[in-house]
């Protein structure tokens, strides 16, 4: 299980990176943390002509509080994000999700931005940034543009990133008063990709869900926002009847794919169980 040969480049600046992306086009692959790309290379599922290692681009690893919110550099290691003291305060959803992202020795290397740009349909972080309505900052030669997280994830391993573009940072807006976050997932083993995961970010008022953002992972081609379900729960107290109604609404929100780990029916069922669990926790404390 050895990779096919490739050329390796390690640009020192974004400009150099743009040059290389232009030079190789679709034959060039960006290497960030490598925790998804390297297995694909080893298995020869990916056989790019060139690997463009952006790990040493300066200034992309910071985690900082800015006026527009919490800004997480694309090259911030997942482990650094997990351990960042500002995370629990400024992005508790991400703080809760982080321990589920792989394992200790993959989080030390895997990057925050890499996980997003990889857009694995079962990954935790894409669902989180969608639920938090984060902004993805994307650099290209012409300058930087911002893409709302909800528009960033387009399909399996597919994002809004155009050829020649690099995700450089993610801005998470400040948490408004009354908003609460719960992340949870159902995985057979700790650290596995989830059979289903739910990133919930909701405004809870007087024991009821006032505004809901419910984003599922592992049940679609990309993070799935459960808008029908959100509509059912919004503004209501979560008694068993509402939870049951929400579960039925979820049927219309999700069309999960089947794979060797779970059938469509199982994923639907688990999503519903997880929804009940997460909503109960959300209003419970």
């Amino acid at each position, binding site marked *: 299980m050895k990779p096919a040969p490739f050329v390796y480049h390690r640009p020192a600046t974004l400009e150099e990176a743009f040059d290389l992306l232009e030079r190789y086009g679709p034959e060039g692959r960006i290497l960030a943390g490598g925790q998804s790309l390297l297995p694909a290379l080893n298995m020869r599922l990916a056989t790019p002509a060139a690997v463009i290692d952006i790990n040493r681009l300066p200034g992309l690893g910071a985690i900082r509080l800015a006026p527009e919110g919490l800004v997480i550099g694309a090259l911030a290691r997942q482990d650094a994000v997990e351990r960042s003291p500002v995370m629990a305060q400024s992005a508790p959803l991400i703080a809760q999700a982080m321990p589920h992202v792989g394992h200790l020795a993959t989080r030390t290397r895997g990057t925050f931005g890499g996980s997003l740009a990889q857009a694995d349909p079962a990954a935790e972080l894409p669902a989180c940034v969608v639920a938090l309505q984060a902004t993805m900052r994307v650099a290209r030669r012409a300058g930087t543009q911002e893409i709302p997280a909800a528009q960033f994830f387009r399909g399996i391993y597919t994002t809004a990133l155009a050829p020649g573009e690099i995700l450089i940072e993610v801005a998470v807006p400040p948490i408004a008063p009354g908003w609460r976050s719960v992340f949870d997932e159902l995985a057979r*083993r700790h650290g596995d990709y989830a059979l289903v995961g739910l990133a919930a970010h909701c405004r809870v008022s007087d024991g009821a869900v006032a505004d809901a953002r419910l984003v599922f992972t592992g049940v679609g081609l990309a993070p799935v926002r459960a808008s029908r379900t959100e509509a059912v729960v919004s503004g209501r107290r979560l008694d068993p009847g509402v939870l049951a109604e929400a579960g039925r609404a979820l049927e219309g929100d999700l069309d999960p794919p089947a794979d*060797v780990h779970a059938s469509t029916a*199982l994923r639907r069922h688990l999503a519903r169980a997880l929804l009940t669990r997460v909503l109960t926790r959300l209003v419970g404390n």
Partner: protein
Amino acid sequence: MSEEARSAGARITEGESYIGKSVVRPQTARLLAGRGVFTDDIKLPRMTHVAFLRSSHAHARIVSIDAGAAKALPGVVAVIAGEEMARVCGGWVGTLAHFKGMKSAKQYPLAIGRATWQGEPVVAVVAESRAVAEDAVARIAVEWDPLPAVTDPETALDPSTPVIHPELGDNLAFELELTSGDVDRAFREADAVYSDTFWMGRHTGVTLEARTILADFDLSEQRLTVYHSFQAPNMMQDILARHLRIPEHNVRVITKDVGGSFGIKVHIYPDEMAACALAVMLGRPVKFVADRFESFLSDIHARDHRVKAEVAVKRDGTILGMKVDDLTGIGPYSVYPRTSAVEGNQTVRLTPCGYKFRDYAASLKVVLQNKTPMCQYRAVGHPIAFAVMEGMVDRVARELQLDPVEVRRKNYITRDMYPYTSPTGYFFERLSHEEALDRLLEISDYPALCAERDTLRSRGIYRGLGLCTFIELTTPGPAFYGVGGARISSQDGCTIKLEPTGKLICMTGVTEQGQGTDTMIAQVVATAMGVPLDDVRVLTGDTMVTPYGGGTWASRGAGIGGEAALLAGKALKENVLKVAAAILACEPMDLDLRRGRIVDAGTGEVRLDLGELGRIAYFRPDTLPKDFQPELAVTRHYVPRHQGFAFTNGIQLSHVEVDVDTGFVRLLKHWAVEDCGRIINPRLVDEQVRGAVVQGIGAALFEHCVYDEQGQLLTGTMGDYLVPMAAEMPEIVVDHVQTPTLFAEGGFKGAGEAGVAGAPGAVLNAVNDALAPFNARVTRQPITPDVILKALDKL
């Protein structure tokens, strides 16, 4: 056993005995420092690497192979396909004569004309590096003509199903009908009859160190040296000699550190035979390291049984009789040389063996499939047999509203019934079901757990307790393979030599794969000799050096290798005392060897240091009487002759919580009580049991080789094939009953299978206990959320 032997046997447990002591394995020091030497760590001059083009189809005709581009790649040494390889290495047929009617087709190192499972090696590429070999494999163009794949055991024998090997006439590799007593009468006289169908998924060993072999052929001396991650080096030596037509004494197989085996590394694999043949063809060392893709597609798989079981019972829970119908789908070939019939055979023979009912009928069919070959993996047949038997016992208890503990007690073979021969022909010298059960109930505080379970149920928390009684086949004699014609040694030798400084070097035919074989052997030798443990160094796994033996599998290390070491140690001690008597001019019977020193047998007064004895014997024998020759190296052999196997027994208890919303199972705790006879090293036995329990839990809940209808493996990576990891595994409490065998002086039996034998049944029963309030029950492993939710009618 003679009175004399008994007293000598007793002596090893007294005084300076290391038997029963949890000494630390000295050999772990190198592994903890990164200084182990596994086969892939070895680098030889001019070494090459082989990679294989493997069939991407489960069943396909090979129309043509174009290797031109591969051969042209710089760094490629050779590209070899099936017919060319067959000229150097002839094929084999995996059958044994004592399995009457068994049949299989001839198998070659590389497929010829047709591939019969996804992953079968077709073309070998030898290159300067593994990466270049893989580059070349990617450049080989094979034209395939796909053929229908046989993938469902249930229809394998239907007339409409294609026959995988037309020369065999059908897809039936082996069948067996067993009957004992009058099973029809038992069913007529029963108050109730219960039947169930159990499915045990296909799984595999996933040794962390993948299969690895490095073969080096010296053309000038016609000598083949093979470094092999393997359990049975003498078996490999024999097979390489015969199939590569090299005199046996010119074939040397060396097993260095082995990174897990569990029965995976005891079979003949076509890719490994090809690597050795390539070394002969090329006159250069050839290394093959299976990558993880190759492991999943080519390591033997195991289980994959569908068992229909029916029990006939009295209202009080007495089991009167049982009928079992076992269907298992192996690969396209029975695996050489142990065959793929053993698991089915053991499944149907082991099933009734914990209990005293005599009316039993079993039917077994072993059918061919276009999937990875199946063969013996740890606890062959046991986990299937006892999941079925114990699943049925709990079914009886549930239906008749009886205590599962009492149903077991009522039906056990009791302590007054030994020696006992099972209705399936197995001989039990003495088992300890009742004692083991009592011990288990005590250490687990079973009644308290039951009470807690009942309390929590009313709060919507569903916990379950599952018992699984098992027996374990260990220490096999020649009836296992030898009588069937397989050249697999059932005896083992042990050589001990005294070095001039008084230290001992011990060589044994049993092998070390992490169990602690070398520590266990050293403990026996040090005890038998009367020397400090640190003075014994054990060497295993080198056919040029170590005494001929079977290696380590079927829990034979302690029962056979341990006994040979005991006999050798006693013999060398006798010789040492003769030398001491010659030096000290007294009688050997007046002397003893204790703590590495010659002492007066009566007073214990030190007479001579062992180093001084060595110095005189080796360098100054001129000072000894002229007619005296010191003999300071001895070899003794041992093969069990009094019973076919040394059966052991035990019981496990699993405590689980089932989330009835998600179907997820949380393992709360696990207990195992087993009886492997006299224990040499309690900690090593405990750890054998714990590791095996977790392998059994893997089978029960996680591990599954899933195929689609075309015979494509869908679980070919470690992301998709779920092995048990630390976060989900429970604390495991291990305890023992000790019933030494009296047929061997040491009293040792085996312990390697026990955990796997009982854990799947225990977990199955625990899950079913948790599901009892819903009147739901599962009989399919692995017990995934899907299986549980379907049983609960939620999917």
